[in-house]
């Protein structure tokens, strides 16, 4: 299980090989992930889409080390992932529960840095930098529940940034905010990627979002899940909510991904 990456020249930052996972035993056994494989290179922006129930969250929990897969191999910079790795930061969908309500915004951002063994001054300066990067420099002393949902998700992103991960993994991060906030947050993420050169892996069920953000879109089938296709997105680095989405290439890519998802869920879901 050591040489599946011979095709690419350099080792990818994150590689997922023959990943399988099922829940339950006996007749109740449900295969969620059947055979999932993909890689993420340094500096990549990869999005993962799939029909609902495709085990996107299970996949994410496996590759972030929160859940043990049945079989398969996950490597971050060549090291196998069997516990949450230090080089990865996670942004959850449910920001209101992932931020700790008894800590201020600043406290929430600095808190993981303690376990990294940083000194107080260093922690605070890093956190303030991250908060400034997401446009929340002035809200550091507020509590999460005193700010809007979009701002809370910005805090969660700042917490991930301050952690200085090699790869930032997001699980449907904008699914619980309104459309306008969602567009703003999408552009914030693209901007962060441009300025800081972070590698992103983002799971979503929104095809528009998947195409708009990505360099490559990984399309999943319905459960038991496999990778249906990896669609490269050649829309250039600079993207714009109105102009990019009006381009014929964008429209074409969107329909292509949509057709893939529809075909995949029809194949797998005859009942």
């Amino acid at each position, binding site marked *: 299980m050591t040489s599946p990456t011979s095709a690419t020249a350099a080792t990818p930052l994150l590689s997922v090989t023959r990943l399988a996972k099922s829940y339950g035993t006996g007749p109740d056994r449900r295969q969620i992930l059947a055979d999932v494989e993909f890689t993420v290179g340094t500096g990549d922006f990869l999005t993962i889409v799939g029909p609902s129930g495709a085990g996107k969250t299970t996949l994410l929990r496996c590759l972030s080390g929160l859940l043990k897969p049945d079989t398969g191999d996950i490597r971050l910079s060549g090291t196998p992932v069997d516990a949450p790795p230090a080089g990865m*930061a996670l942004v959850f969908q449910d920001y209101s529960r992932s931020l700790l309500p008894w800590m201020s915004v600043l406290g929430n951002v600095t808190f*993981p840095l303690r376990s990294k063994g940083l000194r107080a001054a260093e922690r605070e300066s890093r956190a303030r930098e991250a908060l400034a990067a997401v446009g929340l420099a002035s809200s550091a002393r507020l509590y999460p*529940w005193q700010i809007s949902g979009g701002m809370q998700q910005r805090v969660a992103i700042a917490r991930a940034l301050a952690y200085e991960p090699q790869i930032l993994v997001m699980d449907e991060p904008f699914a619980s905010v309104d459309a306008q906030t969602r567009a703003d947050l999408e552009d914030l993420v693209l901007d962060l990627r441009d300025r800081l050169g972070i590698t992103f892996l983002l799971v979503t069920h929104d095809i528009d979002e998947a195409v708009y953000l990505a360099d490559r879109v990984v399309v999943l089938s319905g459960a038991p899940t496999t990778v249906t296709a990896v669609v490269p997105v050649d829309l250039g680095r600079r993207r714009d909510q109105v102009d990019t989405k009006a381009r014929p290439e964008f429209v074409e890519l969107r329909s292509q991904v949509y057709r893939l998802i529809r075909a995949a869920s029809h194949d797998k879901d005859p009942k």
Partner: protein
Amino acid sequence: MTVTGTRERVAVPTPRARSMPTGAWGAKAGFVVAVLAVWEIGIRLGDFGAIPAPTVLGKALVDLIAEGRIAAPVLDTLTSWALGLLVSAAIGVPVGLVLGVSTSIYRLCRFLLDFLRTIPSLALVPLAVLLYGSGLASKTLLITFACVWPIMLQTVYGVRDIDPVAEETCRSYRIRPVQRALFLILPSAAGYLATGLRIAAGVSLLLSLSAEIIIPAPGIGQEITMAQLGGAVPTMYAWIVAAGVLGIVINFLFARVERRALRWHPSQRQGGGR
């Protein structure tokens, strides 16, 4: 919604609760005055057995205070109250932590705990008197047997009720065990523990007084009994009022502590987004 089900905490944003005008204080005071007035007039007009008029009762209370007779029994009651609560917390919190963390130990002890905590503590009065006489030790034993359960169970609930998303967040950021205990488990459980302490504080007072009346042991309870036996009816009422005031003060203080521990909790938030 009022998550903790306490009256003190009903400053929760239900529209009706908020619309109460400031004149409400007038209505409240008016009601109390009206009750006292009807009571006083009623007693003056007709004979209601042993019930004294509020003025007579008030005078008895003032006499108790003026003669300095109130301090010693109140101190006796408070000593056993505090000691019982302290012992209960010293046992309840550590055991609760263990039971909260380990599901298998909890299940091992569940039946036993369910049984023990439904045994009325006062059933132990004869045994306590037999073993420890009528002093502080007996009272403390009875109080502890009643107060240890709410504290222990609240601690279990608190540890159990940590949000799984918060827990995973901590795991994914590789938070160390000490940090996790300090910043996740403790704040999460503190509110529950405070609620448990508030409940236990009330139970502790109830049992202090019960023990004093039943055993009897020195304290407010014994004073009530002695006043009744001696036919000093207004004095008996004065002691009852003193017990009530003590109950209110204790409840008020513990409710405040609880509110502080739950500052971040949705039921406590004022202003700001939801």
